[in-house]
């Protein structure tokens, strides 16, 4: 097999994939390893993960939590090939007219249910000694959150960028909690099918090589870098300033070695445990799951959960090659 499909959806930390595709960077790296890589944009984030889980794509971008609850819980052994960034304020809870998170008690909170926003909200509530029982969660489609916020019915939302920054532009809105208070827990990944990757290391190499080339191009204050970021901004439907403000709240790992360090750190294991427990409580690991560690997660700092059912693997292998310039 030498032709592969990967998909991505519109989000600040994943926009580079679209640029890499348009600018021919991905093709260039694919050619180098003598394979073919199709990069496909999917607007609906969940649909892209579903498609990956159903086997239509060999790789897909997603967060750590969704990687655990959708493909891994669905029995598709997945590897986090590239850790691109973690959210550092890109996800937040917004209240209308009130500036304190504890005021959320009793309100209806609009968010994409069971998503990282839900997780972040739960973490936020924890931080003020509340739990989900103190509020009502209203599932709201991400595409409609911004316009819905203009309605008087909505008083509280939990969401991510670019929706978050749009919502914060509304006169009455206050950011009461954001992911910078739980740094490193919401991680954006490029996930590939473990089996495919093992059979075709070339795929991992080409993707990783391409990614860090794009990273190098978009970073910095040169005109070229600005031009790249302007293109990313337009593709996500905003302008340079808007995109950069989103970047500000995203901890991008421009350098491969930072990403490697992050994956190797023991923090990751704690994070994944917390995510797994949250997911279990909400039934995301499947109804057959007897407890939170039913699905095994393999990490450099040690494994979490059932070793016999390892379905999600974090590996620094390819990023390390990039850091070493070995690609």
């Amino acid at each position, binding site marked *: 097999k030498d032709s592969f499909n990967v998909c991505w959806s519109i989000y600040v930390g994943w926009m580079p994939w679209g640029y890499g595709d348009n600018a021919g960077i991905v093709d260039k790296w694919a050619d180098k390893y003598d394979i073919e890589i199709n990069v496909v944009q999917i607007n609906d984030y969940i649909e892209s993960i579903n498609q990956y889980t159903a086997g239509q794509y060999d790789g897909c971008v997603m967060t750590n939590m969704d990687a655990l609850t959708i493909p891994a819980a669905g029995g598709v052994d997945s590897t986090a090939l590239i850790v691109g960034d973690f959210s550092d304020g890109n996800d937040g809870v917004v209240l209308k007219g009130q500036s304190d998170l504890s005021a959320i008690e009793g309100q209806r909170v609009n968010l994409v249910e069971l*998503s990282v926003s839900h997780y972040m909200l739960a973490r936020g509530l924890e931080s003020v000694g509340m739990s989900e029982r103190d509020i009502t969660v*209203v599932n709201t489609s991400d595409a409609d959150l911004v316009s819905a916020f203009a309605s008087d019915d909505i008083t509280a939302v939990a969401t991510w960028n670019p929706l978050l920054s749009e919502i914060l532009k509304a006169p009455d809105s206050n950011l009461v909690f954001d992911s910078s208070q739980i740094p490193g827990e919401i991680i954006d990944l490029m996930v590939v099918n473990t089996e495919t990757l093992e059979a075709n290391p070339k795929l991992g190499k080409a993707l990783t090589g391409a990614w860090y080339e794009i990273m190098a191009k978009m970073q910095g204050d040169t005109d070229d870098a600005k031009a790249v970021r302007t293109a990313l901004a337009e593709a996500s439907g905003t302008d340079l300033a808007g995109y950069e403000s989103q970047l500000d709240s995203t901890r991008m790992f421009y350098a491969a070695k930072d990403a490697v360090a992050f994956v190797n750190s023991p923090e990751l294991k704690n994070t994944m445990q917390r995510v797994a427990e949250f997911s279990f409580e909400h039934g995301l690991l499947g109804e057959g799951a007897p407890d939170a560690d039913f699905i095994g997660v393999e990490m450099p700092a040690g494994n979490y959960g059932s070793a016999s059912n390892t379905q999600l693997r974090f590996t620094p292998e390819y990023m390390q090659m990039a850091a070493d310039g070995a690609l």
Partner: protein
Amino acid sequence: MKKLINRQPGTVGRWAYGLLPFVLIAIVYTMASGARLADNPNDKLLPAAATMVDSMTRMAFEPSRRTGDLLLWADTLASLERLGIGVGLAALTGLIVGIANGTIPLVRAGLSPVITGISLVPPMAILPILFIAFGLEQLAKIMLIFIGITPFLIRDLQQRTMEIPEEQIIKMQTLGANTWQIILRLVLPQIMPRLISAVRLSLGSAWLFLIAAEAIAATEGLGYRIFLVRRYLSMDVILPYVLWITLLAFLIDFALNRYSRWRYPWFHDRNQ
């Protein structure tokens, strides 16, 4: 040997032919599902029949861990309530405006063009405006259904009203009726069975809009559940839910048809 066009199946043949495609679909599904599950026993895309039955038993008879509800019934009730109110309001509006448009030329001149225009606007594209006007709660969902099907109902009933033979309208006038009486005693009763047909025709769209509305913002409902569990590709819930919706749609259609035949024999027997 008769020509194909003249060959009729017998009663048994009719049933056999009619059931065959359903059986085929079931067989194809079972085979495809079996193949995928053999590959990956955790596959969620095409779950086995037993898995679906399990999931549905859970949804229907075990209280949810989070809310304590019996989810299937809670969802069904919520959705049917929205559908009922939305379609009911649309039917009422369609009836009133359709009859006014169809009977009174001055009203028709004023409203017909704007209704044609509105009927061409795809409601999904103007969601933000709907949110502002109607919020995001129950009202918004009902209004999406309402806005989605009312233009069709109005135009259809206007058409049907205009098809009432001119002779009967003249006849009413020679019996001394004024405009209001013509509407009340001639047009309204004759349009009622046609309203039911129009509603039956529009129910498919109504379900679409309901599901779309519940996908946007909801805490319960059949569409909500489908879009929620889509997050983790629980086809074992989605597929039975879709079948359940199909069954509900069929039952509603059937009941409306039966009611109409019972209530308006003069309409149906004449058109036999």
